[in-house]
């Protein structure tokens, strides 16, 4: 299958390693990747903050860039949620029937990365090895919008050497919420404190999720507190093999159990 990767604006800029991991996993499974360089952003930040009109050109741009893509894979459930929950509404808001039709035609070809593996490819074992104690954070969009349910957990359970530890209160939001983390920094920090406590209580050295936005939030606090727990996107865990784990600039020193790094 020819898979078109939508990296997302923040992964592109802050978490390129996640994109590299997606490429590695899909190529390992025998698919070819294309990356359309005209891509930018899904429009969620503007839409959710109330800049609805400003989001429309961004949405149009996405639809235009990926109009004829066979399959689009996105390592971010919040961006997929933006498309599934709001793109049609945006088109209706500006009374653009053509845009609405284009969106309707595009949506069935859009996949979040983990649901692409489990649902579209029907694969749970992607040949990964990652011998670490890992806990999984359920992001709000992945559960309440995409209804991923236990897909990420099923993928993680097939990773060799991985010790999966359940987390308390998985249903409660980590407090990121995009611009909420800035506009309501105090409440966001209070929510984050509770979520970090749950992560630390698992004793896991790695916290993973399908969204780097939540992970960035969690790590922001855990790093400030100088805890030993690091955050790693699920794609990077799935890309990891006995020969090589993905290497992250944030952590110049590899985890002790790993078998070396690769750039």
């Amino acid at each position, binding site marked *: 299958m020819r898979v078109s990767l939508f990296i997302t604006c923040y992964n592109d800029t802050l978490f390129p390693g996640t994109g590299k991991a997606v490429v590695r996993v899909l190529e390992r499974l025998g698919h070819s990747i294309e990356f359309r360089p005209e891509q930018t952003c899904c429009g969620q930040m503007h839409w959710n903050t*109330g800049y609805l009109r400003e989001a429309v*050109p961004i949405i149009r741009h996405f639809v235009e860039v990926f109009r004829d893509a066979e399959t689009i894979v996105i390592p971010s459930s919040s961006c997929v949620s933006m498309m599934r929950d709001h793109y049609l509404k945006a088109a209706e808001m500006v009374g653009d029937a053509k845009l609405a039709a284009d969106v309707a035609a595009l949506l069935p070809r859009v996949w979040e990365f983990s649901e692409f593996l489990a649902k579209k490819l029907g694969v749970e074992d992607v040949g990964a090895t990652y011998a670490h104690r890992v806990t999984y954070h359920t992001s709000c969009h992945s559960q309440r919008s995409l209804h991923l349910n236990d897909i990420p957990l099923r993928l993680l359970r097939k990773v060799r050497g991985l010790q999966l530890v359940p987390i308390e209160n998985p249903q409660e939001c980590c407090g990121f919420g995009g611009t909420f983390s800035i506009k309501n920094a105090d409440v966001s920090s209070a929510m984050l404190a*509770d979520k970090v406590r749950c992560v630390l209580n698992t004793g896991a050295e790695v916290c993973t999720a399908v969204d780097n936005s939540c992970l960035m939030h969690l790590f922001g606090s855990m790093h400030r507190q100088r805890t030993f727990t690091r955050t790693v996107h699920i794609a990077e865990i799935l890309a990891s093999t006995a020969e090589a784990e993905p290497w992250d600039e944030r952590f110049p020193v590899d985890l002790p159990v790993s078998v070396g790094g690769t750039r």
Partner: protein
Amino acid sequence: MTPPETLAESRQNFPEAARELLADSQIRKNVRHATDVIQAKRNKVVAELPDWQDLREAGSAIRAHALEHLDHYLAQFEANCTRAGGQVHWARDAAEANSIILGLIQKHEAKEVIKVKTMTSEEIKLNAHLEAHGVRPIETDLAELIVQLGHDKPSHFVAPALHKNRQEVREIFQREMKLPELGETPEDLCAAARTYLREKYLRIKVAVSGANFLVAETGSVCLVESEGNGRMCLTLPDVLISIVGIEKVIPRFQDLEVFLQTLPRSATGERMNPYNSIWTGVHEGDGPREFHLVLLDNGRSPILADKEARQTLKCIRCAACLNVCPVYHQTGGHAYRSVYAGPIGAILTPQLHDMKDGRSLPYASSLCGACYEVCPVKINIPEVLIHLRGKIVEEEQKTLGGKLGLWNIGMQAAAFLFADASRFSAAQHLGQMGQKVFVSKSGFIEALPLMLSGWTQTRDLAALPKQTFRDWWAAREEREEKAR
């Protein structure tokens, strides 16, 4: 000390009010405990019903239908209630409602009235109005009694005093009921309330209540409660005055079969609450001789005009959204500075004020969606939040101050960048260079300027990686091209 009425009155926005409440450990502990308990109970009894989603669907459809034909159903309700001996009054706003109610009380020369808990009366500030005119309102709901005697404000519309623990309640009762020997268990406190109120029920002639539902088909009123104080106020006095928002009408008696399943399970986590009273007008020899229903608009009807936001009025005041909200868990209800707090408060309060007060409330949410998941009438609160944010932004952009504000400038700039990949890429490179001044030796950013400092208050930020994904891909493509 009575908390301020509104965010405008306290000259705060939600973040500022929240910061104040976050500093109150006692409230936070009490709120957390209460919401944990109700949530656990709610989840248990909801899991018992395999048709819960069907009930939500039906409830949502019935409420939406009633709102779409609100004038028709209100007129039908009025006709039937009147035919059964009730008297229906219409109040455009709080002032009118207060005037009508006071007038009725004065007509009967009553100096005291007993009250059943009703957030609608809090909304119109009825108690203050009555007191200012020499009428003493006595709250009979235990939580409202605690709030009243404590000169406080409700923080949750199902359990208004959940921010108080037993020691605090005991102190209030000891002082106000003059009971120096009062015990400290919840049982002692309830017994004190029972005795205090009993003689009032049997003596006072006029009662004021709210209602949960108005049934158009029969002209009936339904009140849902637990303690029995509602039944006392509805049946013992000579005169009953009920103040009810216009949005509470449902088409038919049969529709209660849906809401009396979803409301108790959502609100208090019970299969059914202890008492539901349904009465129609006046009944000979049973209950009050006179029944007055005051229909209140007070900002509700304009909300109907907004097709996106109209669903706000479907609310049946179960407070399940408060109980599940991760923001409410941290701050409690007083941070919203409104009768209606939590997720529903974040959309209802600003709209009732025609978006002139509470403008920071639609932003008091991380859009996690937990509220929508539990709402028994499927109000898509996150959708309405975004819609209201859109209205606020649009209004702000009409002013020079708004146009030139940091947020607007930042958002316009970002939109400009996202419109074109080469612009976006250039901005990424600029960021990689420009960040150097913020990045510490460890490779992390620990302090950001201006409004971004909100992040670095409590969080670090990893520096931008040296190479973006798109640059890595481009380099890889080039390598592969060369190899061919």
